[in-house]
C-alpha cells in the first residue's frame, strides 16, 4: 500500500514555521507583508464598525448599534467593572481597544481569503503586552509610590522574616518577567498552533486529493476536519482575546488594590 503512495508523487511536506513568513505584497519593505497589512486593515475595520454603529445612536437601537453596544458593554461590565471595581471607568477605553484589536486580528485566521491570525507572529502580542506592562506598573507606582509598591509586592505580610529571602525574588520575578511573558506567549502560542493545525489538514487534504484514487476518499475526511477545526478555532480566538483582556484588567486591578 505504501509503495502506491510513493510512486504517484513526491513526499508530503508538512507545514512548518516557514509558512508564517510572507514575501512583501509589493516593494521590498517588511511593512508590505501580509501580517502588517492585516493589522492596518484591522484598525480600519474596527474604527469603521464602531463609528457606523454609533453614528445614528438611538434610544431604540438598530441591529448594528446593538452589536456595537453589546461588545462595549461586555468589556465594560464583564471585564472592567467586575475585575477592576471602583475606578474601572478610566481603564475601559484601554481594555476595549485591546479586546477589539486582538479579537479582530485573531478572527482573521478563519476569514476566507485572509486566513492568517496576525497574533501568530510573536511581535504583535509582545507589543500589546508592552503597553499592558507599562500601564499596570505606571498605575501602581503613581498610586503607591515606587518604594511601597515594591515592598508590598515582594514582602507579603504574615511570613517569618527569614523566609523573605526565598520568597521576595520569586515574587519580583513573577511581577516583572513571568507575567508579561506568559501574557504574550499564551496568545502567540494559541494562534500559532491553531493556524498550523488548519494548515496541516488543508495541505494534507490537498495532497491526498492528488494521490491514488482510494486515498482521495480520505481527503474528504481531512477537509472535513479542517472545516470543523475552523469553527473550533473561532471559539479559541474569541476566548484568547477575552483572556488577554481579562488578565490585563487583573494586573491593573492588582496594581490598584491597597493590600493583597
Amino acid at each position, binding site marked *: 500500500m505504501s509503495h502506491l503512495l510513493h510512486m504517484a508523487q513526491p513526499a508530503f511536506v508538512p507545514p512548518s514555521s516557514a509558512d508564517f513568513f510572507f514575501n512583501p505584497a509589493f516593494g521590498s519593505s517588511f511593512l508590505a507583508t501580509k501580517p502588517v497589512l492585516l493589522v492596518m486593515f484591522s484598525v480600519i475595520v474596527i474604527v469603521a464598525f464602531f463609528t457606523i454603529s454609533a453614528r445614528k445612536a438611538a434610544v431604540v437601537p438598530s441591529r448594528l448599534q446593538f452589536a456595537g453596544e453589546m461588545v462595549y458593554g461586555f468589556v465594560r461590565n464583564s471585564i472592567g467593572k467586575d475585575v477592576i471595581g471602583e475606578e474601572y471607568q478610566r481603564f475601559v477605553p484601554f481594555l476595549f481597544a485591546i479586546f477589539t484589536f486582538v479579537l479582530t486580528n485573531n478572527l482573521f485566521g478563519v476569514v476566507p481569503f485572509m486566513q492568517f491570525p496576525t497574533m501568530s507572529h510573536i511581535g504583535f502580542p509582545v507589543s500589546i503586552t508592552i503597553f499592558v506592562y507599562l500601564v499596570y506598573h505606571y498605575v501602581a507606582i503613581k498610586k503607591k509610590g515606587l518604594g511601597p509598591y515594591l515592598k508590598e509586592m515582594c514582602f*507579603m505580610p504574615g511570613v517569618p522574616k527569614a523566609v523573605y529571602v526565598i520568597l521576595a525574588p*520569586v515574587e519580583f520575578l513573577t511581577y516583572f518577567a513571568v507575567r508579561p511573558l506568559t501574557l504574550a506567549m499564551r496568545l502567540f502560542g494559541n494562534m500559532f498552533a491553531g493556524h498550523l493545525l488548519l494548515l496541516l489538514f488543508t495541505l494534507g487534504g490537498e495532497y491526498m486529493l492528488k494521490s491514488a484514487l482510494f486515498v482521495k476518499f480520505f481527503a474528504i475526511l481531512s477537509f472535513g476536519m479542517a472545516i470543523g477545526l475552523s469553527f473550533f478555532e473561532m471559539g479559541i480566538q474569541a476566548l484568547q482575546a477575552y483572556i488577554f483582556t*481579562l488578565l490585563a484588567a487583573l494586573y491593573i486591578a492588582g496594581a490598584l488594590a491597597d493590600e493583597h
Partner: protein
Amino acid sequence: MATTDDGAFWTIIAYLISGLGFWGGMGYLADRFLKTNFLTIVGMGLGMVTGLYLIWIKFIKETPPTK
C-alpha cells in the same frame, strides 16, 4: 465566579514558573561556579516549594472562610 477562576489559574502558573525558574537558575549558576552537580535539582525543588507556598498564602491563607 468564572472571571476570577481564570485569573487564579494564570496567577498560579506564573508563580510555579517563576519559583522554578529563579531558584532552579540560581542552583544552576551555583553548580557552574562551585563545579558541583546537585545544586540545580536542589534549587528546582526549593523553587517549587516556594511557588506552592506563595500560592498557599495568596489563595488559602488570605481568603476568609466563606461561612
